[in-house]
């Protein structure tokens, strides 16, 4: 009996030691997709087990930074937002993967997608999807109001919203995610670019307090208090909380990421299945067709990981064409491979795909700074002060520019 037990013990310990476990932390936006992909991955590689920790986006940065500060090997794979790459790379958190990239990856993944994982000439992982804020509108509500097409300019946006409100079809034309969080900067970037503004000039001085940047904030304040077409609760809703109103048909217009498409068409989460379509984000200046903010994320291997081989296998699996195709068809994500944009399967199964692809030509990125987090926080606080009418937009942005100058050591 004893011999049998010892044998069993040896066999099980061998089994445990021969499987590698990699720990992955990621945002919960595509958690459902990633859970399914993990099952497929583990079938392909039976000796690798994947533990996935899904965290709300707004908690992700904190969790990664504080955990890795104490134990650099706590995670093998981390989700990296495009705005974190400069900082994470500088802090030595990420493992460069330039020598692991295949020719196929180097040549056929969209430049704009690969760029989010690059800093100072090194590549730190693979992008997982190509994301921007899309303009979602409720076609059904527009039809009921007698409006034949979605608005193409912000003036039309205001006018159409008023028509919908006057007809009692919605309480407010649109709801946004302007709470004091990173999402606010994405919306501000969308508007700043669509009014022809910039964050910094050629000499790296902040200029968002003038021109398009100023017009963007003025429009935000006016849309709530003057035109009254934006739900005031936008001030304390983030870009995930605002989805309820659109999914319930309480608002007709909303701007959100690619994962929202799947939520709007899930009968368990939305009453507007198949009614919500995508159009180009409206413009504020005649010369500009459209503008939106980018928000892609990728997966990277941590420098402290003890299972870098397995981690790379997992990352390249999720970046593979089959998985990217699945992610697009089932979850509405935009793929990273250039050739997938002409993929027949995706085009037939994802009805809004070609509309969404159009938006990818009109994108503004948020600034690429090592001190991005502090920069973002300064801007968030002052934009909020303008939105809560404690300061005028000009005052708020001027003060923000002053503090950004101090932050960047000018």
């Amino acid at each position: 009996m004893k011999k049998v037990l010892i044998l069993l013990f040896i066999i099980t310990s061998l089994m445990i030691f021969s499987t590698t476990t990699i720990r992955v932390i990621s945002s919960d936006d595509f958690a459902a997709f990633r859970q399914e992909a993990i099952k497929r991955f583990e079938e392909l590689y039976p000796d690798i087990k994947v533990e996935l920790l899904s965290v709300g986006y707004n908690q992700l940065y904190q969790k990664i930074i504080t955990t890795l500060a104490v134990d650099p090997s706590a995670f093998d794979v981390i989700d990296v937002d495009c705005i974190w790459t400069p900082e994470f790379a500088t802090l030595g958190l990420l493992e460069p993967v330039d020598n692991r990239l295949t020719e196929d990856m180097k040549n056929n993944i969209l430049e704009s997608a690969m760029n989010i994982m690059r800093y100072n000439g090194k590549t730190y992982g693979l992008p997982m999807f190509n994301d921007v804020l899309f303009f979602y509108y409720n076609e059904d509500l527009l039809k009921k109001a007698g409006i034949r097409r979605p608005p193409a300019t912000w003036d039309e946006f205001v006018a159409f919203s008023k028509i919908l409100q006057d007809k009692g079809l919605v309480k407010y034309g649109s709801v946004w995610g302007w709470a004091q969080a990173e999402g606010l900067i994405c919306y501000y970037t969308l508007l700043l670019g669509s009014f022809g503004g910039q964050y910094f000039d050629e000499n790296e001085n902040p200029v968002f307090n003038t021109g398009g940047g100023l017009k963007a904030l003025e429009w935000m304040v006016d849309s709530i208090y003057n035109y009254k077409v934006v739900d005031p609760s936008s001030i304390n809703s983030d870009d995930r909380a605002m989805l309820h109103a659109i999914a319930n048909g309480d608002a007709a217009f909303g701007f959100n990421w690619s994962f929202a498409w799947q939520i709007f068409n899930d009968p368990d989460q939305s009453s507007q299945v198949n009614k919500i379509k995508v159009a180009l984000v409206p413009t504020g200046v005649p010369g500009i067709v459209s503008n939106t903010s980018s928000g892609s994320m990728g997966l990277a291997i941590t420098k402290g990981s003890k299972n870098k081989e397995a981690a790379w296998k997992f990352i390249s699996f999720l970046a593979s064409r089959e998985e990217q195709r699945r992610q697009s068809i089932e979850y509405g994500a935009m793929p990273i491979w250039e050739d997938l944009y002409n993929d027949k399967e995706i085009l037939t199964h994802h009805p809004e795909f070609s509309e969404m692809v159009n938006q990818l030509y009109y994108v503004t990125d948020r600034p690429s700074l090592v001190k991005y987090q502090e920069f973002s926080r300064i801007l968030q606080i002052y934009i909020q002060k303008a939105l809560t009418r404690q300061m005028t937009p000009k005052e708020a942005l001027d003060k923000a520019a002053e503090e950004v100058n101090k932050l960047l050591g000018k």
Partner: protein
Amino acid sequence: MIIPATVVLLLTLFYPIVNTIIISFFDKKLFYPSFSTFVGLSNYKEILSNEEFWSAFKITIYFTIVSVFLEFVIGLFTAILLNQNFKLRGFLRTLVILPWAIPTVVNGVLWQWIFDSNYGSLNGLLYQLGLIHNYVNWLGKPFMALNMVIIADVWKNCWFFTIVLLGALQTIPKNYYDAAKVDGAGFWNRLFNVTLPLLRPAIVVSLVLRTSEAFKVFDIIYIMTKGGPANGTQVLSYYVYHTSFEAMQLGKGAALSTIIAIIILLIALVYIKSLMREEVEINA
């Protein structure tokens, strides 16, 4: 046998405190802990001249005073009520513990939904009663959001005072009240001349505890508003959290924590000095 106990006490109590105070004199960052230089009092100078610190300080003082005051008053009167004899007394005394037993995080989410501007029950109730004609965005304006968070916190914590004061009330002999009634004392008279003086020790303890907890409030702010809108609910603890873990400046965070600890110490001293006088005697 005292030595092991002392060692444990030293390690768990004094080491973290002393270490924090030491860190506050360096410019330590979260990510390069060994590369820190001595900066003397400059962390303290930077903090005390920073507008954001004073704003957080004011908000924290307001939060503490208003919430502790409300909790104390509600707690005291419910304790007096529950000290009376009536049928469902036992049941109510147990019920009262429920809000206090809810984790703060759950309480925060609960009230967040109640105050939701589109789907919240507060809006629904007031609208149906005809008291408001438009839904209100309770957490959308800085000062109003602060007051709403106070309501959520008071609802959960006033029962602490109820329980502590109820316990103390039960030690007051009934014949003191009888004697006072015979002398012609009404409710308020009895309250201020018999009840409160005899409750003094319990009041001091519970006030010191709740005030220092209220001053250190963090989790309900984190859940309900994250310091917004426009930093309108950013209390000192949230500011420390942001400085240490978001801006990654451990040195400044340590200095802030030290400042907060000193303030709480002063508050406790004030309470104890002013409320703990000599033993109170009632001449029957």
